[in-house]
């Protein structure tokens, strides 16, 4: 059982990325005089790896059986966070249960991919009718998360749904429809953004002007990355790290610490680890004999790719600031567990790619 579905390649890539993450969380937080972050992340890593093995042992069929239940639970948790969530800096993203705090939107990611794959397996996406359920699920999750408000995370679900649908055989003419919807939605959406979100976008476009707040992070991060050079300054020797110039550096901006202290070489290695998982996912999607495996692989791969691209892009000033984590690397228990659950789903997708019976 475990032998069939355990996937050495996926496990090795994920573990390597997690270890790098812990090293840099230690580097970034210990210079700020806040110890304990790295230790907590190690504990979370054990939980996350347990979660991975749980998913792998559970197997594809049984997961399909509970897909709807899990999705219902995720929606309930997202509703709960809107109602009783703990507010941090104006956004309700956390649920507190005793000593534990977790972020339901993180757990919604793997569950959403699983549900999508299950729906694809039940019915091939062709006409309008076949799109109602998958797009409906996407809309519900995205809307709930956008209401937290966490627009960045909410928007991740759209490309995931799109890629999964097309990989599973949605005719290409729908691409035009999608493009038209996006073209209408973007300007409308900008009008509806909250002031802080608009500020972030504008800060991205013109960081010098907003030097003190949002723009400051971007500029400092850019300088930190650029001054890393080819080999970097060495662990715990980054100026921006040591002089406490980069806020939020053990969470969203961890990649800039990586780039400053390990340089071009180190950061490309970290990117290759993460994109290795993406390649495995898309290769599995291409070679799969069933829609479940294809959808699962493509979904996980897209999720990883988008998060990595947006986070690394933000740090290098190619993208606006969002709250998206760098999978496996960023500090945070929920994000780490969620990433490892995705890795588990990827292992399952790769294990059952030769089982045509998975569908319907």
């Amino acid at each position, binding site marked *: 059982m475990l032998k069939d579905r355990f996937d050495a390649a996926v496990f090795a890539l994920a573990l390597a990325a997690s270890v790098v993450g812990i090293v840099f969380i230690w580097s970034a937080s210990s210079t700020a005089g806040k110890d304990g972050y790295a230790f907590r992340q190690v504990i979370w890593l054990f939980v996350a790896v347990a979660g991975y093995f749980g998913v792998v042992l559970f197997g594809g069929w049984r997961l399909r059986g509970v897909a709807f239940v899990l999705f219902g639970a995720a929606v309930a948790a997202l509703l709960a966070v809107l109602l009783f969530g703990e507010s941090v800096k104006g956004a309700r993203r956390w649920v507190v249960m005793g000593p534990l705090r977790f972020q339901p939107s993180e757990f919604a990611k793997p569950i959403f991919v699983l549900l999508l794959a299950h729906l694809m397996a039940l019915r091939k996406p062709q006409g309008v009718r076949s799109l109602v359920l998958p797009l409906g699920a996407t809309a519900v999750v995205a809307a709930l998360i956008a209401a937290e408000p966490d627009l960045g995370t909410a928007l991740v679900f759209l490309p995931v749904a799109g890629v999964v649908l097309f990989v599973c055989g949605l005719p290409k003419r729908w691409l035009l429809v999608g493009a038209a919807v996006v073209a209408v939605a973007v300007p409308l959406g900008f009008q509806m953004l909250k002031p802080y979100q608009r500020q972030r976008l504008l800060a991205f476009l013109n960081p010098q002007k907003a030097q003190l707040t949002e723009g400051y992070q971007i500029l400092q991060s850019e*300088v930190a990355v650029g001054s890393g050079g080819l080999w970097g300054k060495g662990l715990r020797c980054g*100026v921006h790290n040591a002089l406490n110039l980069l806020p939020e550096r053990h969470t969203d901006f961890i990649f800039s610490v990586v780039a400053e202290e390990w340089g071009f070489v180190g*950061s490309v290695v970290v990117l290759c680890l993460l994109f290795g998982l993406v390649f495995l996912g898309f290769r599995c999607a291409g070679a799969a004999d069933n829609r479940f495996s294809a959808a699962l692989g493509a979904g996980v791969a897209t999720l990883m790719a988008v998060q990595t691209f947006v986070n690394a892009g933000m740090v290098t000033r190619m993208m606006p600031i969002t709250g998206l984590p760098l999978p496996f690397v960023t500090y945070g228990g929920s994000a780490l567990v969620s990433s490892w659950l995705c890795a588990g789903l990827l292992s399952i997708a790769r294990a059952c790619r030769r089982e045509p019976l998975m569908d319907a």
Partner: protein
Amino acid sequence: MLVLSVISLLTLTGRLFHLQILRYRHYAEKARKKCLLLEVVTPRRGSITDRNRLPIAYDATTYDLAVVPARFDRLLRLVLRLRAIGVPNPEKVFSLTAQTNRVVVLCPISERRLPYILRAPLSDGSLFTLQRGKTVLLAATPELLSETRKMLVVVAELTGQNPKKLMSRYTKIRQKIITCKNGYERRHLMGSPYVLAERIGRFVAMRVEAEGWRLPGVCVVERKRRRYAGEAFGTLTGYLRLINADEAKELRAQGRIISRGYNSPSTYERIASADCYFWDERVGAFRLEAALERRLRGRKGVRLLERDIEEGGYCVLSEVKAKAGENVRLNIDADLQKVAYEALKKRGFRGAVVLVDPNSGAILAMASYPSFDPAKIKAPKYYKEIMKRGGLIERCGGACYPPGSTVKPLVAAAALAEHIITPQTTVTCRGYYRSRKAFRCWIYPNAHGPLNVTSAIERSCNVFFFEVAERLGGEKLAKWLARFGLGEKPADIPWSKRGFLPSPSNTHPWYRGYGRLVAIGQGQLLASPLQIARAMCAIATGKLPLLRLFDETPPQSRPLGIPESVLDVVRDGMRLVVESRHGTAHKTGLSAFYAAAKTGTAEVSKKRHLNHAWIAGFAPYDAPKVVFVVLVEKVRGHGGQVAGPVAEEVLKAFFGERKRAER
């Protein structure tokens, strides 16, 4: 899809290549030289002054002498450079003593490294090379080697400190810099000032500033320290203490705490938009410092600096100015307060002294003993001692006592105003009221005989007032005492207590005997010295003023509703207390000030014969200028005997002052 992900990976890699490889020099320079730093400017805490603007609590600017190693210590820079090029054990340069006039050879060195070593500030010829065969040796003049030590000696002379002590202090700083592994942190340490000598005095500070050219890297750092006028004001001003854990938690929840690693500019907005506290800030702990905390502390300012790490220069990118704390002026007269406090202290009396100007309600002195010196309270030993002897109780307004016979004039005024008695009504005192066992007159067994109201006040006869209370009834008695301000806040002082005025409406069950007890200031009746002082103001002027500690409070008063003729009778009684042979305070020297007064002796412990001794009154009796109240807690002896001399001493100071002022 595979293609798309390859493209995105390549895009990221390309961007990283662009930033980290192609534009590396640009960013490296930016990161090396410039950094944004936040500087929080803490304003001066407002001062508390007395009526003559003499400071009672204020922030004094003190000066510390500090050195910036980067400019102060050329030897240290030499050592760091030698270490950077891999010379083994460069620290030994520090221990080279150059007593001779000969140059000292330091180490062999390669020609290639020389320009790096000889950069400014070591380019003035104090370092040079010697050729020995094929090897090139680096050598230094003895002046360079002893330079730092000499400067430290000069600094020691200026500040009057022991040069050896200074040297050992500075060696520690050197060690800290040398052992620092992180290059950027080390530069930071090199560029920041270290305090070598604290509180160097203004003249020394000025000399250091003036002779600065002789002492590169030596600077004067200003620091504010809270100063207090001494023990007499301790219970009034309170003191400053560190923020405690609960407050820190609450502030953190509001985002108003500035924690240790605060110099990240992301905190700029936070500090600019809300009134923030440092995690280790001192806040007002007690009485005035606590009550006026908001006004005294002002508001922090914040500056965002772009700083050149190497050179130490900076430019201000953006700034929010600090707002200095407000100054608060009290009506207290500092000299009187000191006299009043000393009068209690030298006799070892726990108690309170209140002086009030009856016409304006201004509180001229409110001394309370035991007190404490707010400047010393930081020391744990002193604090413990203070807590042991109860120094943290402010006894003038913050504590209530049974007022004893000092309420008798008020009761007499009430009875006269209600026409229950006339000035001529007499009551015969047999030494006890109704039965021999209960309700005795306090000088029992000697009976007073027949007394009218004036002589009842004069001799403080309990039996007379038992009778009066009986005729008045509890309801009316409470109504009239309330008119004299008992049972309500007497002053504009936030911590002043209301005391307790028992009446049939707030005491259940109410027995008839309670009224009799209230009439002689015992039983459940509780009043603070300030309340008694206020009532005395009312008797002296016919109006009940609000007592004012703060100069800014406008004078307010309300009419008493008692005719002058009635008050005159009471004043006569109080006058006789001091003047007549039978008066309870005639042995004191109060008559010299034409004072009218009433003594009080409230029994606390019959077994140990302990009483609260009171004396309250005003002077001069025909045109009152001052109301005085003295309370001495738990002493043997009665009011006139114990509290009288204290009152006399305080009045002496008051009128002496007055005379001087008139001259």
